[in-house]
């Protein structure tokens, strides 16, 4: 029964995404390796505490977001909603979740700068950076589309980007993705679902 309602909820989410009223889903290419139920691509990147891999968080639900610290509107809005959703969950649920932010602007966003920026939102948020080439591979694997939007004064360059939360189950599978403007309620549901997945698998 629980599983059925989960399936209905999830397929309706996918339908909403495909209906075109919200941004198109991240899987825009013919490469279908990124799909709910499939293993989320692993990565190893630099945090201000040293290298971190997705595989390090087996047993925890991971929520992944790509962006950059100079992002004036989209990233702060998404991060703010996510951290509010996290803070509203019971402590025990929060302990089973790991939020991760990966930069799209590695020349500016050093691991130290990311840590300083993310502390403002949530103390558990991990910020990851690397060289351009490594980040290119990971963004491709996650179907993140982004492009520098040069301004007349290069000091004010912006980066256009897709903005989705990727929810990765404690067994490392992509559970679902949601757009950055999702309500706190929807984010809370998605996060709770991740933790429930683990309980189901343990039984």
């Amino acid at each position, binding site marked *: 029964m629980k599983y059925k309602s989960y399936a209905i909820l999830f397929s309706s989410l996918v339908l909403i995404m495909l209906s075109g009223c919200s941004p198109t889903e991240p899987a825009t290419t013919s490469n279908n390796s990124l799909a709910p139920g499939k293993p989320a691509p692993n990565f190893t990147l630099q945090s201000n505490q040293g290298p971190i891999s997705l595989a390090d968080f087996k047993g925890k639900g991971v929520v992944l977001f790509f962006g950059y610290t100079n992002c004036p*509107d*989209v990233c702060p809005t998404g991060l703010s909603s996510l951290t509010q959703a996290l803070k509203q969950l019971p402590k025990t649920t929060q302990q089973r979740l790991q939020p991760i932010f990966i930069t799209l602007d590695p020349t500016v966003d050093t691991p130290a700068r990311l840590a300083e920026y993310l502390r403002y939102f949530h103390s558990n948020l991990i910020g990851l950076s690397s060289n351009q080439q490594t980040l290119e591979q990971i963004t491709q694997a996650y179907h993140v589309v982004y492009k520098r939007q040069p301004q007349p004064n290069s000091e004010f360059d912006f980066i*256009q980007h897709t903005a989705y939360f990727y929810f990765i189950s404690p067994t490392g599978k992509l559970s679902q993705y949601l757009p950055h403007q999702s309500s706190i309620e929807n984010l809370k549901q998605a996060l709770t679902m991740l933790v429930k997945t683990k309980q189901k698998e343990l039984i």
Partner: protein
Amino acid sequence: MKMLISSALLLSSLFIATPTLACDDHKLEISDSYVREMPPASKNTAAYMQLKNTTDKPLKLLEVQSDIAKKIELHNIVNVDGVLKMQPQPYIEIAANNSLILKPGSYHVMMMGVKRQLKQGEEVKMTLKFEGGMTRELTAPVQPIMPKSAKAGS
């Protein structure tokens, strides 16, 4: 004596200025204005507000000035095949007898190269310039990013 004259002059100029302001008030109402609090390490922020045009003619916001930022532009966020793109706008039009809300993910006043990290409790002064020469002074509080859904408690 000199000071008295100059203050009298200043006072009279205030009286002259007041009726114009009152007149503008009938054309445009600004509410819920705020500037987004800035996370450390960030140089950019945005101002958001509700603009209500009470006339039967469209009103165009052409420019916002403030000495808090190196550069201020009017922007909109558009979704091009799932990629979110900030587009500079030559103006923001408020339709006749209508309201327009500047909010995250939509129209906003983009503040680039902000001179200090703005925190909640501070205020930002700005001047809004409209087509036809109308200007409005605005003092907006700095507030944390709080999505609408959180305010509603839903």
